[in-house]
């Protein structure tokens, strides 16, 4: 019985460790031929297991008119640890994005 309990605890621990590492993965999406400007970051926090999700403030980006070059979503070690310790009650992710510098046709000098 003890052995079964130990195995079960071990599996649960492995699941937690796996969630911790997988939660820090980078999810990256880019347009074809991105022409990136400076990177900006925002933290989006979900509480009550997703019933309440918000950023701390709204953002006015400098990329108006050009759109996104790329977007990256990831959690930091601290964000993942907070999520695990709070049993998922608080789950934050960082969204990093870069504006597109624009694509101009070849002109005449």
């Amino acid at each position: 019985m003890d052995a079964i309990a130990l195995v079960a605890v071990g599996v649960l621990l492995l699941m937690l460790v796996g969630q911790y590492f997988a939660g820090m993965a980078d999810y990256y999406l880019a347009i074809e031929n991105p022409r990136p400007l400076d990177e900006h970051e925002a933290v989006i926090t979900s509480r009550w297991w997703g019933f309440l999700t918000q950023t701390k403030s709204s953002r006015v980006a400098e990329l108006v008119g050009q759109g996104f070059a790329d977007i990256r979503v990831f959690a930091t070690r601290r964000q993942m640890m907070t999520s695990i310790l709070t049993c998922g009650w608080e789950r934050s992710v960082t969204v990093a994005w870069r504006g597109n510098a624009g694509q101009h046709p070849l002109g005449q000098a």
Partner: protein
Amino acid sequence: MPVVDISGHPPDARWVNYHKTGESILSGRFALRSAGLGPGRDDIREGAQATLEWLGDAKKAGIPVRPVGGAWSPSNIQTVQDGWMLNTRRYNRCFRLGEDDFTDRGTVPAKYFLVEGGVQIDEISDKLESDEVGRSLRSTGASNGQTIAGACATGTHGSVLAAGGIQDHVRAVQIVTPSGIHWIEPATPLMSDKFIAATGATMVHRSDEMFAAALVPVGSLGIVTAMVIETVPRFYLQAILKLIDFGRADLQLLADGEFRVFSDKHGLPEEPYFVMVVTNPHKPFRRKAVVRFLYERASMDDCKCAETPAELGAGYDSFTMLGWVLHNLPFANGFIIQTIMRLAVGKGIGPEDKLIGTWGMTTETHKPLAKIFTGALFCERKDLPRLFERGCEAFAGAGGATAVTLRFMKGGHGLLAPARWPETAGMDCDGPDSPRTRRAFAKMLTAFDGQDPIPFTRHWGKENQLDAARVAADYGVDLIRWKAVRNMLLSPADRALFRTQVLDAWGLTA
């Protein structure tokens, strides 16, 4: 108005460079943008005049300035504290030139292009390599996210055997300083006076000495707003990528410039256009190395066109992803680096794949997923065996955890070009950043200066641990000549405007 105040926009006062190796706490952020005017000379005149006014405002306020393009350099050459930053990435247009724009009416205008300082290398390649234009850059760095002005400022190199650094494409430069808009080209005139005046330049310098200084300005001669570049007809490259057993005899072949023999042994039986060898510094001759060859092709007949740069073997800087593992398991570094190299190569690219692409397709704009370490050294090619063996011993012995990449090139033009020997070899340490790797890199640099010193230079844009004494020793008379040109372009008060901690430490602002 091409210069726009973006101080209120994120990331606000705290700005971090592309590879997150340095930050600036700024008192103002500005963006230089194309005004969308045509013809191109009007757009460049508008941008240069706006930059001139902006520099005047900064000078009046006594605030240091720093232009930034791709923000690519991990050496933090683009950071400034309590200063104004000018982001040039939206000043990114390219233009064809006409016969009348040149002094010599016999010049073939199709070879030349006028580019704005903020245009990214990848953007230039995309435009040049279109079917409509059919031109190409001859060589660039492996990554293409830098702006043309930034890449030239640091003398960025590739591994094309018959070409030098990227600045070798440049035939004329427009630089803005607080005193005016300068047009610099060699003593033999290229562009017509009428064209130069139309770009807003009021001071024309036709001088080989000034041109040689302006080719690699190291961010210290003013703000580069435009360039005329010379290109070559579009060509294609067939890629070979594979793991090889790399021995001392191979290293000697490379040092002797026997690239054809090296290619016969490990690639195709023909002269390669590009050769790069990625080695494992932990027992480099007992572990596998990755070799990448590119062979020039006139057409794409019988070949499969690569759809992504990665298919041609680009993106090898994926080594950066396991930083913390390497840092925390130093005893296993050799094994881990080898495993990463095997995974990165996969099944490789063989002759039977007949995978082909343009030069631009062989490079890639990578997205850093980890804090990277990247350092690059240059030496005369014949000294490579000593540099490599001594370097690997010191670097690996101190726990350095990056691959060591060997590249080969001609000496680049420009007084401060770090690839400065007629036959130059480059040795890059690219991988995940960690304090241990930084210490190991420093130890390696010290080892080269020890008994039986090996002459070498360091990349301006990468981790280099340079100081003023070392810069003076590396560049000698060329540095004195470069400073003489700088003093012609910038008065002491104007020089103060371009001071930063990094440039001060290198002795380039004094």
